[in-house]
């Protein structure tokens, strides 16, 4: 299995390190041609406005959008969540996204989060973090803050967190994503 990490701007190497901890090969994605041969892709944290502009400039937005809408596995953290939700970007999650939802950097925080399906709490690192609201019923909510701010969610093969698992060394979200890819591979495999 090879997992791509979108390498236009942001915390790229942190995700590569997490994939290495999960013993999965990572491939950096900068151009359309790089998409060949990967089984899923991570959209890292960074400045969503900048990553969006670079996706457009590199003519990566449309091909990647097509792939994702066809069910290609994708995991987005923070800016990745924003881009996967914004209709002008990937628009695959039916929800509204509030950028910098918790405020500026001075309001950035760490907090233990309970996540659906995880036995122990997950240490959430929120940096100028967004959240989701008005989430469609097709989307599975995995974690919330203040009851109504959705901070982790899944829709088919799309997984998003508003916080940064890649800054914690806790690989549970990355493992969850890898299992999503494996399940899809079983489904498409001629031997299945």
């Amino acid at each position: 299995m090879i997992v791509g990490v979108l390498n236009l701007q942001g915390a790229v190497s942190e995700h590569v390190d997490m994939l290495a901890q999960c013993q999965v090969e990572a491939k950096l994605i900068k151009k359309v041609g790089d998409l060949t041969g990967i089984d899923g892709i991570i959209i890292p944290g960074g400045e969503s406005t900048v990553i969006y502009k670079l996706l457009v400039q590199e003519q990566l937005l449309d091909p990647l959008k097509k792939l994702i809408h066809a069910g290609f596995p994708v995991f987005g953290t923070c800016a990745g969540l924003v881009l996967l939700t914004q209709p002008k970007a990937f628009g695959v999650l039916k929800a509204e996204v509030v950028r910098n939802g918790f405020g500026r950097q001075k309001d950035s925080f760490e907090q233990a989060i309970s996540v659906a399906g995880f036995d122990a709490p997950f240490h959430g690192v929120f940096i100028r973090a967004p959240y989701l609201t008005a989430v469609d019923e097709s989307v599975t909510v995995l974690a919330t803050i203040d009851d109504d701010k959705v901070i982790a969610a899944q829709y088919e093969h799309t997984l998003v967190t508003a916080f940064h698992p890649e800054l914690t060394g806790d690989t549970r979200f990355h493992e969850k994503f890898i299992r999503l890819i494996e399940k899809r591979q079983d489904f498409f495999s001629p031997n299945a």
Partner: protein
Amino acid sequence: MEKGTTLVKRGMAQMQKGGVIMDVANVEQAKIAEAAGAVAVMALERVPSDIRAAGGVARMSDPAMIEQIMAAVTIPVMAKARIGHLVEARVLEAVGVDYIDESEVLTPADDTYHIDKTAFEVPFVCGCRDLGEALRRIGEGASMLRTKGEPGTGNIIEAVRHMEKVNEQIAQVQAAQPNQLMTIARDLRAPYDLVKYVHENGKLPVINFAAGGVSTPADAALMMNLGADGVFVGSGIFHSENPEKFAKAIVAATAHPTDYALIAEVSKNIGKPMKGIEMATLSDDQKMASRGV
């Protein structure tokens, strides 16, 4: 819920990697920078080359001007405090800026001590010319580093020297024997535990941007090739002939530092860069990099 932790302060800088932070002197420039793809803006009344030209004492910018810029853009806003001026830093924290640059571009307020940055919830970036300086600033609580370069000159040579020096010294510390680390810490005048971190990890515990003399797309890509995590551009954008084009081109070159055909493309017909200053023409007291070491 915990705020202002080391993880969220350093993490904020990690999210800026591969990006360009642009100096802006007003709302209009801030909007141009954001539209061009800046990951953050540095709000200051005068860019470094104008500070150089104006002379006198350079201080923190007017908080009202910083607030206007914060209201005008959605990307992070940084601002500069004088080295050692803990009240300017507290004022900037109260205004709510996302990052403080304790900067040699402003006239130092204290020539002995830097600010105790561990006491703040807002993260700090500081300049460095070598590994010892880098680790002293981290020891004081800096969450991000940048080369000092020589601000406002439009001349890349000092930033190149500082980036190469830091990375060379990191490699030396990594290759050293464990019994040599205390002597290395003494010689670098750096905290032992941070020298040990570098030995064990082969890198700094915070990210390190290039700054001080970046003025063209090729300059930005050069610094990325030398191992910078991203780029600050001070005077280089708004003292060029066409700031909008320059800003966009520098963003593209920083994101694709080894795609030379792309850098060639974005460098075409963007007008003249800032004029720049040859180092030999600067006297020692005109150099900003030697402030606050």
